[in-house]
Each structure stands twice: as structure tokens, then as C-alpha cells.
């Protein structure tokens, strides 16, 4: 076995690989850019080598720099993680030339799977089901129309070198095919410098389901079940699970066998992923093969108990697979939620800055499962497991240079239903402050009926959240549980307040039993009967909850037991009340005495100011310049001002036509998020 391995990556995946290497007794080397000096992967590794400035194209993906780090540290193998150099054949060649093992497939496999057209040809030759279409290059629009008719509408017109939705068009008829061909070609030329176009059948009700394969250099190949990755936002996966709620055993087997066949056809040796698109009738078609470890590999590990990183390292070391296809069993259900530093309330705008608070839920191992480097039996058999793969820590910095994913939260349970429920609680318990993040959105997805039923397609987010994410309104039952909990917490906080020093003897304040709780526009009148073990909260209109918790004032996470069910609330302060976050909802909760509530009702409701006619500062920063003047008419898209944040100048543009009515800030002013910069008439 290798003595030392270098991880040519950063963030959570570097940390993930280090954990397995450490378990196997292999020393680890991290590489880092200027932006990552304090990063977690650097702290975790045995050695760390600095490889340049923050931008990846000057550090992490510069082959020469990585090779230098390898030479300097004497690493015998390199794990590339995902992204960066993981599917770069030149890098694999450079390693080979230097006699360093690449923890990944052979160069030939990377090359042949790297091109969409080549890989599809190989797949067809290996009898892998592919989307009907025309693989050759298409010369002109008329030819595109002809081919589209042969394939049958709807068709997808795609750039050969494409990715990320660029150079992609869907056509339902001849006119659209003609037009789509031209625009795809133009876009492909400008985006990729390669205007080769092909046409294939557009699959309806598509799901993204992929097969994990594992091959060695001795001709052995197995598949480890599938992963369902249909919940995506603009081709960025958000939620994954294994197994898929859609596949039956026969389809799984057929897909798995075809995936292994394809891998073996290119002499694959490592862990790899064969992506399929599956239509509503369970027809599956090969999409592409990812010749690396996938981001979402943990869900496969959780249901198979196989450490994929360990297997990759062993294969790279020339060992034969110790598991056969018959050894692979899929146990229970695993779900992964990707935590992104993206603000769902602002159109998923990336958010950067300091993680002033970062407290993931407690990891729990359970069943025949792998939770990071912990094996087996830490929680009673059959109970839910929680795993969090992360590359950040409280007090760390989310920089603008890299992927905005900060953690992959996974849960496992014997059933899908239980795994989803465990995920809901885990999300409720996950504390992240200082940056915008998608936790509320993930909570909303976990409660979405379509997701819960397993009936989703790759269009789920686009169809269910067409206007973006606007928060969650909780159902009545949840509101009552929260109201009961807040009443009990408020009582505890008020009792503490009466214990301040300097009181008049014998004239202490008495805390009553009747409270009015208001949240999300509802008011509940409750009576609290507290005893040593908790509080019984009775609602005036019927219903009673028993609330128990060891919450004390100041705790930002309240772990409660409401009628035997767990309830986890994030508790913040707002003037005169609590800010409560739970299940994707973010609300103000006021607990008042009946008289206070009566008087509070007399208070005018103040509507938040109409911000549609204002330019708000999107991030904390410094105004560099204001480009417009009072009374000036501006056009949509016109530059209004420049804000410098994190050493980057951001130009803010007009969202629509308007006339400048007021300018509230000038060059040199430092502004906070949502400060009003310009008001329009």
C-alpha cells in the first residue's frame, strides 16, 4: 500500500479523502491556494503545500504546480477528488510519466468518456441503451430538420462540447428545429470554440438516475446500485438519494449490467458513474460517464457500507476487488442534501463571507453503514444515521473563488419515509449564520408532497418554484406545536427575569399562566401548567400539548419533545419576541400576557416598505461610485452604481426603466445588506 497520498483538491472532498486515507494508515498531503490557508483540509492533512493564488486556474488546476507538490512531498499516489483535475487526461498522463499512481481510471478511459459523441458511440457499440438520435455532425439547418423528423419530435439539439445547459435547445416542430440548430451552433461557437452539434430525442418526464460502478485492473467490475439525482436547479444537483424511489429490481439490474459493460468496454479501473436519463415508462438512456468520484457518492456508501474512496485507493494500488456483485446489498434508504452558500430568497445568489456560526447536527452511525470513518453500530440498529461531509468550520471563510457548496448532509434510515424525517430534523438542527444559505429551501423540498411521494422529474424545482423560493408557511398543526413550545420557553425566560437582584422584598413579580402567542398572522390563547418535567400547554379552542425541553434562555437551538415527537427550533431574538426557524419557515413569534396582547392588537400594522422602486445594496460593501444623477432617466440594465465587496467591484444595474428620485449614498460610503442606495419615482 502507498505510504503517502496527495489530494489534488480542496473543501469537503479533500477532507473526505483524508479521512479514509487516515483510516488506512496512509499519510496525507493537502495542497492549498492563498484563499485556503486556514481551510479545514489543510488543518486535517499531515502535510500541506501552498500552490499559488486563489483563482483555481492559477493554483488547483495548474498541473505543473501539483506535480511540484508531489515531488516535494514524495507522495506516491494522487486522489483528484471531483472537479479540478479529476477528469483531466493530461494530468493522469503526467502522473504516469512520473510513476505516481492516479487514484482514478486509466488515461484512455478518461479520454474516451470525456467527449459526448465518442462516449455515445462506444456506448452503442457496447449495447448500452442510448437516446435515439443522430451522432454524426450536422452541416446545416435543413439537415437538422430532416434528422429531427427521423428521430421524432420532441428533439434536443445539443452542442457536442456542451455542458451546463449552454448550447442546448428543445424543438417540437420543424421551425423550432431550424431555429434551434442555428442558435445552438452560435452559442456553442462562442462558449466553447467548438460548434459541433448533434440531435437526439428529447425525453419526457425525465429523471436523472445514475449507476455507481467499481472496476479493478484485473477485469472485475461491479455496480453498487443507483442514485436518483432528479432534484436539480439549473443542472446543479441539490438533493440525491439511493436507491431511487422509481426503479424496480429488473430495471436496476439492466442498468447496472449495461453500466458495467460500458466501463469494461473502455478498460475502466476505479470508481465511476454512468448517468442515465429515465423516462416515465422506465426506459433508460445513457447520458454520459463521469470518470471520477461523484459528489453524491455518500448515499451509495450509506446503503452499501462500501467505502468508495478506500476501494479507489486499493484499485489504484493494483489490488483486485474483494467484493463481488453478489456481496453488494442495498440496505435501507439514504438521502443527501447539498448545503450551498446561496441565498434562496435572492434568486440563489452566491453568498460569501465569514461563517460566524456553523454547527452541523451530530453525526450518528447506525446499521451496516459507513458514516465518515466510523463503522457500524454506534446507534441502535435500525435507527436513523446522520452524516455530514464538510470542508468548513465555524469562523471560516466562504470565498468567492470556489464552488459554493459547503456541506453534504446525509441521513440514512431503514425506509425512505424515515430517512426523509431524519433529514427534516437534521436540517432543523443545522446552524449556519453569517452567510446566506439554502437550508430553508432544502427543508421546503423535504416537505414537498411531490418529493415525499417520490414522483419527481428533473424539472421539479423549475416547475414547483417558478418564481424562486419565497419561504414557507407552516400548516396549522406545526404552528400550534411551535406556539406551545414558544409559550413554554417564554415562561422560562420571564421567570429568570424576575430573579434579578435589587427586587423589593415581598413584592416580587408573579408570572401568570395565561399567554397569547402570535405567529404567522395567527393568535393562540394558551394556559400553561408547568411541573418539574415540563409544561402542559392547553389551547383555549381545544387541544393540549405536553412540552419538555432543557432549553434555557440564550440557547440558539431548542431541542424539544412535544407529545413524544421531537421538535427542533432555531431560536433567535427579535424585539419583544423570538425569531423561530423551523422546516424552512422563518417567523417572528410574540408571547404576551392576555392584556399585552389586547393592547398589541391596537398597534397599527406597518407594511414593509415597497422596495420595488429602490436599489438595495445586495451585500455589505463600499460604494465606489454612483453612475446616475438625481432626476436622470435610466434604462433597464443601465449601470447605477458600483459596490466593492471582498475586493471585487460589483456593478448594480437597473432592473427596469425609471427616473432617479433620491440618491442615499455616495462614493466612499460603506453599506450593509438591504441599505437603500437609490430610490426611483
Amino acid at each position, binding site marked *: 500500500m502507498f505510504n503517502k497520498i496527495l489530494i489534488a483538491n480542496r473543501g469537503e472532498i479533500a477532507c473526505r479523502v483524508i479521512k479514509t486515507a487516515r483510516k488506512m494508515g496512509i499519510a496525507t498531503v493537502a495542497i492549498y491556494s492563498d484563499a485556503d490557508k486556514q481551510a479545514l483540509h489543510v488543518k486535517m492533512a499531515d502535510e500541506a503545500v501552498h500552490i499559488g493564488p486563489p483563482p483555481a486556474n492559477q493554483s488547483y488546476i495548474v498541473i505543473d504546480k501539483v506535480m511540484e507538490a508531489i515531488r516535494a512531498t514524495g507522495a506516491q499516489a494522487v486522489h483528484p477528488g471531483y472537479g479540478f483535475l479529476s477528469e483531466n487526461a493530461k494530468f493522469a498522463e503526467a502522473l504516469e510519466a512520473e510513476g505516481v499512481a492516479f487514484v482514478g481510471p486509466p488515461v484512455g478511459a478518461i479520454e474516451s468518456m470525456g467527449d459526448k459523441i465518442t462516449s455515445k458511440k462506444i456506448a452503442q457499440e457496447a449495447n448500452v441503451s442510448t437516446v435515439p438520435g443522430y451522432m454524426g455532425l450536422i452541416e446545416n439547418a435543413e439537415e437538422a430538420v430532416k434528422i429531427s423528423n427521423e428521430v421524432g419530435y420532441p428533439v434536443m439539439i445539443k452542442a457536442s462540447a456542451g455542458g451546463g445547459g449552454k448550447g442546448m435547445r428543445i424543438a417540437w416542430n420543424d421551425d423550432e428545429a431550424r431555429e434551434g440548430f442555428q442558435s445552438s451552433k452560435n452559442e456553442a461557437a462562442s462558449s466553447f470554440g467548438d460548434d459541433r452539434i448533434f440531435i437526439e430525442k428529447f425525453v419526457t418526464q425525465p429523471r436523472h438516475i445514475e449507476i455507481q460502478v467499481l472496476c479493478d485492473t484485473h477485469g472485475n467490475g461491479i455496480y453498487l446500485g443507483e442514485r436518483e439525482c432528479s432534484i436539480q436547479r439549473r443542472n446543479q444537483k441539490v438533493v440525491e438519494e439511493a436507491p431511487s424511489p422509481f426503479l424496480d429490481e429488473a430495471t436496476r439490474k439492466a442498468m447496472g449490467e449495461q453500466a458495467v459493460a460500458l466501463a469494461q468496454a473502455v478498460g475502466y479501473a476505479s470508481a465511476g458513474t454512468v448517468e442515465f436519463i429515465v423516462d416515465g415508462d422506465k426506459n433508460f438512456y445513457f447520458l454520459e460517464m463521469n470518470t471520477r468520484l461523484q459528489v453524491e457518492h455518500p448515499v451509495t456508501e450509506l446503503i452499501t457500507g462500501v467505502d468508495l474512496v478506500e476501494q479507489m485507493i486499493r484499485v489504484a494500488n493494483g489490488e483486485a476487488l474483494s467484493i463481488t456483485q453478489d456481496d453488494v446489498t442495498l440496505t435501507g434508504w439514504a438521502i443527501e442534501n447539498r448545503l450551498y452558500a446561496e441565498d434562496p430568497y435572492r434568486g440563489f445568489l452566491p453568498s460569501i463571507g465569514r461563517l460566524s456560526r456553523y454547527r452541523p447536527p451530530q453525526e450518528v452511525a447506525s446499521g451496516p453503514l459507513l458514516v465518515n470513518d466510523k463503522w457500524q453500530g454506534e446507534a441502535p440498529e435500525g435507527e436513523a444515521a446522520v452524516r455530514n461531509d464538510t470542508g468548513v468550520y465555524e469562523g471560516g471563510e466562504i470565498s468567492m473563488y470556489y464552488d459554493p457548496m459547503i456541506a453534504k448532509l446525509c441521513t440514512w434510515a431503514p425506509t425512505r419515509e424515515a430517512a426523509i424525517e431524519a433529514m427534516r430534523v437534521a436540517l432543523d438542527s443545522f446552524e449556519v449564520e453569517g452567510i446566506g444559505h439554502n437550508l430553508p429551501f432544502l427543508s421546503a423540498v423535504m416537505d414537498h408532497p411531490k418529493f415525499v411521494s417520490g414522483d419527481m422529474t428533473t424539472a421539479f424545482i423549475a416547475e414547483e418554484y417558478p418564481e424562486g423560493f419565497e419561504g414557507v408557511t407552516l400548516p396549522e398543526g406545526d404552528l400550534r406545536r411551535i406556539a406551545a413550545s414558544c409559550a413554554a420557553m417564554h415562561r422560562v425566560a420571564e421567570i429568570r427575569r424576575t430573579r434579578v437582584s*435589587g427586587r423589593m422584598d415581598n413584592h416580587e413579580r*408573579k408570572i401568570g399562566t395565561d399567554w397569547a402567542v402570535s405567529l404567522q398572522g395567527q393568535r393562540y390563547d394558551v394556559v400553561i401548567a408547568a411541573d418539574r418535567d415540563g409544561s402542559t400547554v392547553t389551547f383555549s379552542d381545544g387541544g393540549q400539548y405536553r412540552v419538555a425541553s432543557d432549553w434555557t434562555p440564550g440557547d440558539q437551538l431548542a431541542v424539544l419533545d412535544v407529545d413524544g415527537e421531537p421538535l427542533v427550533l432555531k431560536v433567535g431574538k427579535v424585539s*419583544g419576541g423570538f425569531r423561530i426557524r423551523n422546516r424552512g419557515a422563518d417567523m417572528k413569534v410574540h408571547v404576551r400576557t392576555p392584556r399585552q396582547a389586547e*393592547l398589541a392588537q*391596537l398597534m397599527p400594522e*406597518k407594511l414593509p416598505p415597497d422596495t420595488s422602486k429602490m436599489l438595495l445594496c445586495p451585500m455589505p460593501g463600499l460604494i465606489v461610485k454612483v453612475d446616475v444623477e438625481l432626476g436622470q432617466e435610466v434604462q433597464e440594465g443601465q449601470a447605477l452604481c458600483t459596490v466593492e465587496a471582498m475586493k471585487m467591484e460589483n456593478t448594480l444595474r437597473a432592473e427596469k426603466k425609471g427616473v432617479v428620485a433620491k440618491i442615499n449614498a455616495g462614493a466612499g460610503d460603506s453599506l450593509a445588506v438591504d441599505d437603500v442606495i437609490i430610490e426611483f419615482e
Partner: protein
Amino acid sequence: MKDILSELENRRNAARLGGGQKRIDAQHGRGKLTARERVELLLDEGSFEEFDMFVSHRCTDFGMEKQKPAGDGVVVGWGTINGRQVYVFSQDFTVLGGSVSATHAMKICKIMDMAVANGAPVIGINDSGGARIQEGVDSLAGYGEVFQRNIEASGVVPQISVIMGPCAGGAVYSPAMTDFIFMVKDSSYMFVTGPDVVKTVTNEVVSAEELGGASTHTKKSSVADAAFENDVEALAEVRRLVDFLPLNNREKPPVRPFFDEPGRIETSLDTLVPENPNTPYDMKELITKVADEGDFYELQEDFAKNIIIGFIRLEGQTVGVVANQPMVLAGCLDIDSSRKAARFVRFCDCFEIPILTFVDVPGFLPGTTQEYGGVIKHGAKLLFAYGEATVPKVTVITRKAYGGAYVVMSSKHLRGDFNYAWPSSEVAVMGAKGATEIIHRADLNDPEKIAQHAADYEDRFANPFVAAERGFIDEVIMPQSTRKRVARAFASLRGKKSRTHWKKHDNIPL
């Protein structure tokens, strides 16, 4: 006998109705509570003891003898906030517009005298049209009596003003002399001369809200310490503030049970100060991570944001916090921030509240605006306030402590009791670049040499150790253990006694 008893109840009911149901409804219609409702919300349930419910005015001019409402437009008395005694007056806008008559003022004076005698705070709720013009100079005399009592009570018992309606003309000077002023957004305003007079005299057209609303006074003038959405919220927050304050100047600040480990380690603070010395960070994160339960009662949040002031608790006991804010103007001192912090430091010193100072200050803000505005004397206020304060003073330098501003910010030289510094501190006369250009003026044309000199200067001075060698810094501490170290420091200072020379009073550069 029964009739006599019911007569009392009848009279009480009449008095409680103030200006009558119609006016009460109008008051509610404006989104405001009545004087009595406000008192109810301010005090513990059922704790209010009213005085002078039946007092009425003695004016006989302009037909005033025909309307003599019981109480005369102000509700006064005492009660408790979380069991601690406070005195309160609450002007009743429904009665003659809450206007101040001689008797109205007399009622206020009565409870102020009692508050001072018994050592309990005074909370005034202002909602008044101003002087009762019919009474002429009697009304003015009333104001004068209140002013004089505000002055005499200053530094003896805490005085809090809550502006919940109009407060104009001479009336503003009573709140102005109290320790804290709170306002309610959209329904309160304060000014010496109203929009009409302004227009007549200066031709300026301005609305009452723009001239003296909550936004003006919290952001521009700094007259108000905070503004709240409505009456209910404002009164709840006043209760919260009172929980931090001692009852008088001879009592220690209050202590209450706390649920936060004093030795709590915050590893994230080790990365709070960014590597680049010119990159800002949010000092409030340090404050909330040091405070018990993350609870920080900030004052003047929207004014002179380059300095932060407010109250926290450590081990359950109130501590006043002053901190430079590197996010705004790099945390430098200027006229506004010096004034803001100086008054706060003096409040803490009056009432035996220990002061915790977090320092990251690159110096004083340069420029003609500052010099013409008298930054010399305004800056001196903060220096003076720190130097004369005899309460326990603990200071933590997180990054820059440059020049005169270093001395001002509760340094050892101003009798700081504990002066800590983080390893990231730079205690120096100025930054490396500026210092090098002065010391090595001869090499100014040689960028290479200058860079070398700057690097040398940084090696020598951009750290806390030069100051620590001289004992100006008592100890260099790990950021993560700041809460623990600071809490222990204050614990050790609970018995602090210090003497000053006899004097009538000092002559702070006002």
C-alpha cells in the same frame, strides 16, 4: 358609608377615562396607546401605585375654570419592573393635549423627588402638545422645576425618557437631560421649533417627521438612543433596559441568574481578525460571543456606527461595552463617535457599571470637516471620560491601536485595570507605511529601500509585544479565551476602590 365608598370609585373611574372615550379612540386611531395603558405595559402587572389622581389645575383665565379634568393630563406614580422599583410619569394626550400646566409639572416633580429620596429610576413617557398657553409663565415655571430636578437627579438615579407623541419647544429639554431617550417610529417627534416656525424664519419646508422624527434623531442628530416600531415594542424594550441598570448610584449593577459558562471557549474568534490588516470585520460578533447568552443591548445603533456602545452581562452582571467598529470608517475616532462613546462611558461611571472596551482603532479621522468641527475638543471628551472613570475597566485590543487614539481607548495610561491584547494587535504610533515615510524621509525616492524599512517597522512594531515589554499590555491573550479572561478580570475587580481628589466637579471639555 357605602355611598362614600362608591363616590371614590366613581371619581376614580372618571379620572381613569382621562379625556373621555372619544379622545381615547382618537389616540388609538393614531396607533398610540393611552397614558394608563402605557404605564400598564411598562410595569409589572398590577404593580402600579398612582399618586395625584385627582389633582386639577388652578387656572381661571380663558375659560379654563370650566374644564378641570382630574389628573391634569399626566399619570404619575410608582411600580415595579421585574420586582424592582421605578417611578413613572406618563403624559395623557387625551387630556388638554397633554399640555403642561403648573400642577401637571408639580405632579412630575413630586415623583422625581420621591425617586431621588428612595433611590429608584424615573421613567418619563412624553406625549404632550407643550406648554399650556393659557397658564403663561406658570407653565414655564413648571418646566423649569422639572428641568432643575432632571439636573439634580442626574447621576443619582437613572432617568429614561420615552417619546411617544409630540415633544416640542422647551419640553424637549427635560428628555434631553435624561440618560436615555427612546422614540416610536412614525408617531413621535421632537424639535425645539416646529415646521411652521422653521418655514417662517428660514423658508425651509420640512415635515415634522423629517425635522424631528425617530429616524432623524437616531441617525442624524443622535438625540435618541433607539427607536421602535410601536408603543408595545418600545415599552417592552424599556423594561429590558431597566433590567441592566442599577436603581441608583450607590447600588451595584443588578445581577441575575445566567445560563452561559463563563469559561466558554469560542474557537471561531481565532479567525475573526482577517489576515489583511486593511480588511474589515464585524466587531459585533466579538461582543455577542463574549456576552452572556449572546445578549447585547445596543444603544445609538444607527449613529456614528464607527463606534459601538451598549450593555451586556458577564456572569449575570451588567457591563457597559465600548468598541471600535472596523466595518465603518475603519473604526476610526471622529467627532460623532467620540461624543457618543464619551457620554456612555460617563453614564457607566456614574452608576458603577464596569466598562469593557474592544479596540481596533487606526487613529482619528483627518480632514477639515473634523478640525473645523472641533475634533480636538470632542475627542478630548472621550479621553476625559475614560480617564476620570473609576469603575473597573477592562480593555482588549484586537488589532490596531495607533497613536493618540490608542491612548484614548481606555489604555493602561488612563488607569485601565486590565489591558489585554490579541496576538494580532499592533500597538504603535501609526501604521508601517506612514511611519516609514516620516522616519526615512531621505529614502522616499527609493521604493525598494522604503519597502524594506516598512517591513522592518512591521517586524518591530506591528505586534503587541513592544507594549507588553513595557507593561502597557498586561497580557497577550488568545482570542478564543476572551470571554473567560474578561469575565475573570471583572470578577477580580468587584472590590475595586479608587480615590480621586476633592473637587466640586470636573471641567470636561463640553
